[in-house]
């Protein structure tokens, strides 16, 4: 695959100086970079689709995205999960028009081409009268994800047939992030997936999950409502912030901040645990737009009181009406707009907080490196962007496996 960028351009690793905390602002708004991102990041990575509990029975489906592509995750008659591209093979119209539900087949409402739960074409109106029975149904099934695998009930899919198995992609660090949520019990998604769009780049949203610098400022009105003083908030986030930092291969991140434990599976899945029990996925919808999906998890065996407490905590904080996240969306939009500045196009963003502060933790017996240092730091953001550049520079999965960055003190 050749890059669509001019030949004179440097690699993504070279066009920014991550080690010194300088990042090219264009990566957050440039359309050419974004188009390459759809191929090299979203066309290649394992992407979270939904949880087993959302589609327990044959014919249960849930609509989501792979990159910008609309996909249907459906439980087939054999008990497996299929990920089907929601576009009829005849003229491309949608074959599924609901966010979720149950169906025995997917029929295009334009000319009636009909597909079974495995995506096979099973009906072509007028096949005898109009096509003289020449349509070879086997050749005209729905497009599908190249691979579908799950880990502890979390269903992932990739568009790349060359992608290594899901667990290789997750690595020890990525699995720990999912384990933290899965270990709450026999978990299920509570009905009510929030879908929220912002005019913001998806990477800016992702970065905010491990940004504890902004908390006392952006959310100052929240702390007024909760009657916490600025000094308390800054003590918690800026002073008492030593601890473990997990930087996983391919860009997975966990901060281990008590009450937060914000984890991100590269590229666009965040798991907020320890206090909240939620997964947020930030789908790209253009260089300057995203759609966020929120999934709240609770143990099926939780008492009614425990269940209510989990749900209430999430509702109070999350989504466009959540008292925390009400304040975040506007920042994401402003940053995205600022990243597109033409006057400032040669001036990088500053990512210099905590340079060199994350040290390898000696004697940790986990099967991946663990670091320790200031948890309020831009070490996560630098790591994510360094890994993002690896993905963007790699020609294919083999290249990525050979040349991706390995976590080290930074």
């Amino acid at each position: 695959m050749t890059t669509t960028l001019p030949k004179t351009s440097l690699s993504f690793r070279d066009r920014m100086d991550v080690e010194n905390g300088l990042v090219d602002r264009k990566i957050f708004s440039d359309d050419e970079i974004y188009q390459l991102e759809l191929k090299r990041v979203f066309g290649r990575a394992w992407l979270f689709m939904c949880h087993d509990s959302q589609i327990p029975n044959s014919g249960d489906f849930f609509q989501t995205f792979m990159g910008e592509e609309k996909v249907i995750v459906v439980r087939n008659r054999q008990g497996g999960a299929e990920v089907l591209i929601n576009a009829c093979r005849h003229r491309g119209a949608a074959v599924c028009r609901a966010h979720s539900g149950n169906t025995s087949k997917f029929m295009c409402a334009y000319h009636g081409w009909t597909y079974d739960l495995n995506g096979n074409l099973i009906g072509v109106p007028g096949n005898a009268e109009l096509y003289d029975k020449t349509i070879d149904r086997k050749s005209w099934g729905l497009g599908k994800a190249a691979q579908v695998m799950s880990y502890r009930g979390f269903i992932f899919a990739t568009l790349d047939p060359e992608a290594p198995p899901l667990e290789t992609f997750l690595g020890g660090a990525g699995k720990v992030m999912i384990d933290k949520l899965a270990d709450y019990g026999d978990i299920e998604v509570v009905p009510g997936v929030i879908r929220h769009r912002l005019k913001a780049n998806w990477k800016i949203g992702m970065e905010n999950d491990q940004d504890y610098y902004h908390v006392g400022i952006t959310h100052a009105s929240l702390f007024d409502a909760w009657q916490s003083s600025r000094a308390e908030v800054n003590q918690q986030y800026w002073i008492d912030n030593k601890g473990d930092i997990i930087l996983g291969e391919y860009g997975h991140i966990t901060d281990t901040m008590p009450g937060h434990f914000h984890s991100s599976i590269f590229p666009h899945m965040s798991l907020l645990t320890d206090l909240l029990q939620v997964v947020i996925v930030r789908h790209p919808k253009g260089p300057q737009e995203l759609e966020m999906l929120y999934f709240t998890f609770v143990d099926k065996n939780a008492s009614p009181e425990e269940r209510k407490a989990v749900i209430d905590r999430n509702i109070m904080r999350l989504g466009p009406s959540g008292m925390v996240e009400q304040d975040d969306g506007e920042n994401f939009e402003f940053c995205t707009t600022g990243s597109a500045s033409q006057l400032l196009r040669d001036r990088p963003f500053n990512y210099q907080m905590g340079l060199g502060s994350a040290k390898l933790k000696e004697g940790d017996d986990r099967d991946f490196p663990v670091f320790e240092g200031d948890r309020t730091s831009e070490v996560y953001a630098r790591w994510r962007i360094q890994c993002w550049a690896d993905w963007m520079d790699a020609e294919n999965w083999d290249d990525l496996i050979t040349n991706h960055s390995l976590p080290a003190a930074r």
Partner: protein
Amino acid sequence: MYLNAEAQNEIEQFFYEEAALLDEHRYSDWLKLFTEDCRYWMPIRQTRLATQMEDEFTKPGEIAFFDDDLPGLAKRVHKLESPYAWGESPRPRTRHMYHNIRAIAVEGAEITVSCNFVFYRSQLEDDVDWFVGRREDILRRVDGQLKIVWRSIFLDQTVIEAKNMNQFF
């Protein structure tokens, strides 16, 4: 069911007064319109097949955009009135409009009223949001004044396109 003109007028005036409080950003005064045992609830709506509409909205106890009792609502008011409520500065220009106001049930001292709403918000220079939907309010007379016991807000959008929902409906 039809209310007589006097009862209909009282409910309409009550809602118009409420709209004025919200649009004038008098949130603490607005909060006084609710009873001690109130609930302020906006379920999540999703796009469903016409044959499977029973799960279009989440139910009480499931995920919601808002599911507040009076203390919860008071926290939201306190937040909006903080000098650090960035979303309130510059003040958004809001307009709450209520239409098709009709009683749908009367039970003892409580009356259930349905109305359609249009909530327009102009923010900063050129940010514009339209929130459109239906409200269902259980109203009760307390010391001669109508109060809101349970407000349900059914937004028509299933994908929220506004950058936030800071204000009230």
